[in-house]
């Protein structure tokens, strides 16, 4: 069954286990490819992960003059092909979130590939496997739809990728999941 990465930003505790786990995916050369930001440093402990959203029509791939960024049949936007990447860093500039990272020594871009050797077989990527808070989840479309209904409040708090750059394979739920909840008592 097709599954997607789904983010509930409100849950994040900033443990950066997702980054540690990213280094542990066999295909990742022990370098993490995502980001966790302190949202209000000096004020509170709020954090949020910034993951590649695997755009359906990805700006990084479009901007690549060497066609080094391939899109997997699952929709995952892969890391640059070593033999094709010319190290121009167009992709990093083109990506609205600055996701692609750059290895100056190898003159090579690297980015999240959704742990393709796992996710192609339906195994959750490392980040979503370990995330202790369910900020990062690996869900079927039906499960995501249920989530959307559950959190679909009239105050525009549910935000899917439609409001971001363009259509994305990763679904994001911006802070606000608790606003629509009816309290038990």
């Amino acid at each position, binding site marked *: 069954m097709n599954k997607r990465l789904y983010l509930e930003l409100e849950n994040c505790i900033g443990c950066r286990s997702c980054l540690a786990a990213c280094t542990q995916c066999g295909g990742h050369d022990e370098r993490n490819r995502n980001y966790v930001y302190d949202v209000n440093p000096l*004020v509170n402990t709020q954090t949020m992960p910034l993951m590649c959203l695997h755009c359906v029509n990805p700006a990084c791939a479009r901007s690549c003059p060497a066609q080094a960024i391939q899109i997997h049949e699952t929709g995952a936007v892969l890391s640059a092909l070593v033999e094709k990447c010319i190290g121009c860093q167009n992709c990093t500039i083109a990506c609205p979130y600055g996701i692609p990272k750059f290895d100056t020594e190898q003159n090579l871009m690297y980015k999240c590939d959704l742990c393709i050797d796992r996710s192609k077989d339906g195994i959750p990527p490392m980040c979503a496997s370990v995330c202790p808070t369910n900020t990062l989840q690996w869900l079927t479309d039906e499960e995501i739809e249920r989530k959307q209904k559950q959190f679909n409040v009239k105050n525009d708090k549910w935000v899917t990728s439609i409001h971001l750059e363009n259509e994305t394979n990763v679904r994001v739920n911006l802070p606000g999941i608790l606003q629509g909840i009816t309290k038990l008592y």
Partner: protein
Amino acid sequence: MQMDNFKNPRDHFFKEVENLNHPNEELVKTHCSYCAMQCGMYLRVNTKTNKIIGVEPRYDWPVTLGKMCPKGVTAYQQVNHQDRILRPLIRDDQSLKGTKEGFREASWEEAYDLIVKKFKGLQENYGKDSLSVYGGVSMTNEKCYLTGKFARVGLQTRYIDYNGRYCMSSAAGGLNRSLGVDRGSTIPWTDIHETDCLFIAGSNTAECHPTSMFRIWAVQERGGYLIIADPRETPIARRADVHLDLRPGTDLALANGILHLLIKNGHVDEEFVKNHTNGFEEMKQVVEEFTPELTSEITGVAKEKIIRAAELYGKAPNAIVLFARGIEQQIKGVDNVSAYVNMSLVTGNIGRPKAGVATITGQGNGQGGREHGQKADALPGYRKIANPEHVKYVSSVWGIEPEEMPKEGVSAYEMFGLMEQKTIRGLYLLCSNPAVSSPNLNYVHQQLKNLDFMVCVDFYLSESAEFADVVLPTTTWAEDEGTTTNVEGRTIKINQAQKPLGESKPDWQIQVELSERLGRGKYFSHLKTARDINDEFRLASKGGYADYYGATWEKIDKQDGVFWPCKDEKDPGTPHMFLDKKFYHPDGKAKLFALPYRPSAEEPDQEYPLRLTTGRVVYHYLSGNQTRRIKFLRDMCPDPFVEVHPETAAKYNISHEESVRLFSRRGEAIYKVKITEAIRKDTVFVPYSWGHEQSINLLTIGALDPISRMPEFKACAAQIEKIDMKKVK
């Protein structure tokens, strides 16, 4: 319950996921080495080199479902780390004690010979009790059990205690006297997300037990409530329905204040109190005066928040109270624990699913390790050394005469006092790093230096090893097998994934070999494997209230763990405690305690106006001896810091990232300032996982709880001084 098909419950979070299996790799099923969440994991082992090369989530572990914090993800990197001690080390020049210098490699035989000669010499000259053992609970039940036997039968000394004294002793004391039994959690963790109100006191759960968080958030997603009592707005407090931001050290007043309101609002379960508890009237009298006004005055928490919290907890159909070191590491830690247990008793929120109380145990085997005889006053199965019947039973298992059983010893911190008086002259230290984790470190370091002879068993050269004459290399958790007992009271299995590195040996083997050389082989030589020890230890626990007799390795594997008590082959164990409403006191009732408030040992004053509290960050575990060596964790948090509220910082004219001098009556250290609004204005916080001049425990106080002998790590008085850069230059 039918044993044959019993399996501990899986909940709706559980998903069948196949693991990724790389070619030429084997996945070894085990659990994390660090905290008591004991997250399930597989270690990836290269089948050609037989070396551990990575980690794979264990989706099928019902408690944590593959989830891990960054410590767990990188835990395997301890095993083949360049800092591993591979051969025994001896230091001949005693003047170098307290430094890393002067060690030379030696053979096991030479190291053993030296230890035997020194230990025998000390005992001949100064008596059996001149030796001491200081253990730890980041090791298996088998090792914890044998360490108790090693001290009392191998070395024949009364002086044994362990690092749980700094961790779980107040919880143990409070639960024992309130409920008659100290099983840290009365419920399995798979109940947590199904409760309606969680009251969490003194636990930075998001950083210290991160893999509890998906269950905790789920309470709120279901419409339930989350109440947090913590001086800081930790990541979990940030999302709480009510955050009770109390002054460190005032938990007892807060709990009494909530009890006052529960009674006043009619939220007492009269039936339950009448049938299953003693002491209500006395307790009621004491909490009478803890009006919201008085409670607010003592704790510094706004009155409205206290009222709201009491209302939410009182109205909840099912409620769970969780607490941790924040309330326990105080001179009234035991009272704090009993006060929070009072809350669940008066509302009848205990002894049924989805309702209960739990201490969130710190160390990996903090639960099992305190039950099987490493404690100064305890014998296996949570028996008491002061009880002749208990001594008789354990003596019979050990094959000694009851008269040979040494008497009760003293607590961990008090052992340093005996070192000062030269009552204790020799130390066998294992699985612990008291040169970082003890309070009042300037004093503790002095006592370690004063020892005539010290052995340290570790796999890295810890700050404590720097005081040793002999360092023995032991194995990491992944190079041995055995059981641990997790935060829930569930016994689980740790498996060996790699052969011991270099010449390192598991702790139990070292203790057997040393006992043999001390002429005590007949009590130890039959223990040739961890499994042999497990068999003996289950027997030794039999009939005690922490009864593991029926918790065999096979059953653990089959049922996804075994909750104690588990009395025999047929018994599947006890996930929920007190379902029959029988508590473990002789009359079957729980005790409500009347607990008058008293201040901390050292309240802030003009000279030291700030309240200093300590704790952890998510990247480091306890004294940091392991995690500070792991690159990812070190990169994320290389140094300690002092958290200061912006208004307080303005008063001291200090800014973010500036280095300041923090000092107390006992010591000082220099830290970079971290400005945050997520802390009280009267409080500063420093994480404790660093050694040497970075240790915040240079400043903390050695005042002890009268019952648990737990030091008051969580509250002392301190002052900040701006560093005059002109003078430094």
